[in-house]
C-alpha cells in the first residue's frame, strides 16, 4: 500500500519516461560512450570516454557505474530532499557531486596503477530527478538540453576551450561552429586526483523533455534540427532517440553518439508531511 500526501503527485518512475540509445557512429570502431538509467530513483548518467585502445570505454564505464550504483543505493534508504549534514545541500545534490568525485578518484587510481589505462578520462553528465526538479551535474562537453514549450535550451555549459572563448566574447556562437578547436575539454573526470563537478538545480515542468548527449550528437547535428526532432517526435520518444542518432550518422557520424531522453509526464513532488517522516523513520 502506498501513502499519498498530495493526491496528484506520481511516483518518480511513473512521472518520467526514459529512453537511452548509444551508437559507435560511422567512423569509430569502438564505442567509448557509456549510459545508464534508473527509472526507480530518477537517475540518468551519460559519459564520453577518452584514451587510447579501450581505455576510453573503461573510463566512461567506471564513471557511469560508480555514479549510478552509489546514488541509487543511497536513495534506497534516504530521501533526496533530506539535508546533507556535511554540505548543507539537498542530499540529491550532495550525492551527485560526491559520486562524480568518487568516480573521478576510481578512474584516476586505475589509470595510475595500470599502464595501459594511463591518461584515460571521461566527460560525464548526470541528471537526478526528484521533487519536481532535476539536479544536473556535469564535467566536460557532454550536454543537457531542455525542450520546454517548443523551445530548446542548453542547461549545461561545456567545459571546453571553445565555450570559454564564447563566454569571453572572443568568438561568436555562429563562428564557433567553424572552429577547429572543438575537441578540447578543459575539465574531465579521471585526469587529476580531484575534480569539481558543475552542479545546478532546475525546476521541472510537465511536458518538458530533457536530452543528455555526447558531443557526437551536437557536433554533427544543428540545435535547430535537434529542436525540430524533439518537438515533432515528443509523442514517440524511442523514435526521437533513433532519429537523433540517425541524423548524426547521416551527417558523417564522426564520433560515437549517445542520447538519453527524459520526458516529464506528471508532477512528482516529494512527500514532506509527518506521515512521510514517519515512514522514513520506519525504514531506518
Amino acid at each position: 500500500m502506498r501513502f499519498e500526501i498530495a493526491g496528484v503527485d506520481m511516483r518518480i518512475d511513473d512521472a518520467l519516461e526514459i529512453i537511452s540509445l548509444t551508437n559507435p557512429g560511422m567512423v569509430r570502431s569502438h564505442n567509448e560512450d557509456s549510459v545508464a538509467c534508473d527509472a526507480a530513483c530518477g537517475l540518468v548518467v551519460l559519459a564520453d570516454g577518452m584514451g587510447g585502445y579501450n581505455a576510453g570505454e573503461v573510463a566512461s564505464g567506471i564513471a557511469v557505474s560508480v555514479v549510478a550504483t552509489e546514488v541509487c543505493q543511497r536513495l534506497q534508504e534516504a530521501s533526496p530532499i533530506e539535508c546533507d549534514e556535511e554540505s548543507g545541500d539537498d542530499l540529491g545534490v550532495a550525492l551527485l557531486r560526491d559520486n562524480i568525485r568518487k568516480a573521478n578518484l576510481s578512474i584516476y587510481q586505475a589509470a595510475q596503477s595500470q599502464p595501459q589505462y594511463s591518461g584515460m578520462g571521461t566527460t560525464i553528465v548526470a541528471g537526478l530527478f526528484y521533487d519536481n526538479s532535476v539536479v544536473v551535474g556535469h564535467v566536460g562537453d557532454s550536454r543537457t538540453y531542455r525542450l520546454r514549450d517548443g523551445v530548446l535550451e542548453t542547461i549545461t555549459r561545456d567545459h571546453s576551450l571553445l565555450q570559454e572563448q564564447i563566454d569571453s566574447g572572443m568568438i561568436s556562437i555562429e563562428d564557433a561552429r567553424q572552429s577547429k578547436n572543438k575537441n578540447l575539454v578543459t575539465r574531465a573526470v579521471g585526469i587529476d586526483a580531484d575534480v569539481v563537478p558543475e552542479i545546478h538545480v532546475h525546476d521541472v515542468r510537465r511536458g518538458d523533455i530533457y536530452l543528455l548527449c555526447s558531443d557526437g550528437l551536437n557536433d554533427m547535428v544543428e540545435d535547430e534540427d535537434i529542436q525540430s526532432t524533439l518537438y515533432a517526435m515528443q509523442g514517440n520518444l524511442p523514435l526521437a532517440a533513433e532519429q537523433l542518432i540517425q541524423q548524426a550518422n547521416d551527417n558523417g557520424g564522426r564520433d560515437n553518439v549517445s542520447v538519453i531522453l527524459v520526458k516529464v509526464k506528471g508532477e512528482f513532488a516529494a512527500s514532506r508531511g509527518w506521515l512521510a517522516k514517519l515512514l522514513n523513520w520506519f525504514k531506518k
Partner: protein
Amino acid sequence: MAAKLILSMDGVVIKEYPLNKERMTIGRKAHNDIVIDNLAISGEHAAIVTILNDSFLEDLDSTNGLEVNGVPTKKHFLQNSDLIEIGKYKLKYINDQVSQTSAADFEKTMVLRAPVRPEAPVGEAKLGQTQINPSIAAEVEKTGRFGVQPAAQAAAAPAAPAPQQVAVQQTSAQAAPAAQPTAVPQAAVVQILNGPNAGKELELVKNLTTLGKPGVQVAVLTRRPHGFFITHVEGAVHPAVNGQTLGDQPHPLQDHDMIELAGIKMEFYYKG
C-alpha cells in the same frame, strides 16, 4: 602544420609567414612580425592571435583599416583561404588542417590541462587578454546564472492550415559546413491534392518536415543523404503510401508516391 599567411602585391608573392606564435603583428615599423614598409600601412596595423588551430585577425586602430574578402573588418575569425587586404597588399590565410589530418584523429576529444593563456602585453592585445577568464567562469558557476542559451525557437505556428487537424509545419535545418551530408538529395515537393488547401505545394527544404499536430496525429518526412522517408510518429491513424498503410518503420518515398494521412491526400515528387 601551422597555418600561414602569404603576402603578395599585384599578384606577385612576396613572402610566406607561418603563424607559429600566439600573437603576430603586422605593421610598417621594424619590430612587427610581418613588416610591410609602405606609408599606407600604420606602424602597428593589425594583429593575428592564434590559439591552437584557430586564428583571429584584429585591426589595431590603423589609419587606413583593412578588408577581409572585400569587407572592411575590425575583428575577424579567419577561415582557410580568407584574403586580407591592407592597402595594396594582400595576405592570404591558409589553414588546411582538416584535409591533412584524418577525420578520426581530428575529432578525438582531448583534455586541455592548463588553460592556454597568451602572454599578451597589458593594455594592448584586446584579443589576447579576453581569451580565457577563469574568474568569470568561476563567478558564473557560483551564481548559476550563465543562463540557458536559447538554442532554437519553435516554429510553432502551423504554416498551412489543412483540413481535419492536419497542419503542415516545416522545421528548419541549416547544417554547418562541417556537418553537411555528402550527398544532398535533389529538391522534392509534397503537393496537397484535396480539401481546402488542394493544389498547395510544400517544398521539402528542411531535414525534417512535420505533418500533423504533436500530441494528436504526427507523421514526419525526413530528408536523408539517399532520399526522403516518411515515418509514423504518433496518433491513431498511420499514414498510407500508395494505398498501403505504413507500420512503425520509416518508409522510403519514390517519385510520385501518393501519401494519405487522416483523409488528406498528398503527392510526393522530385522537382526538376
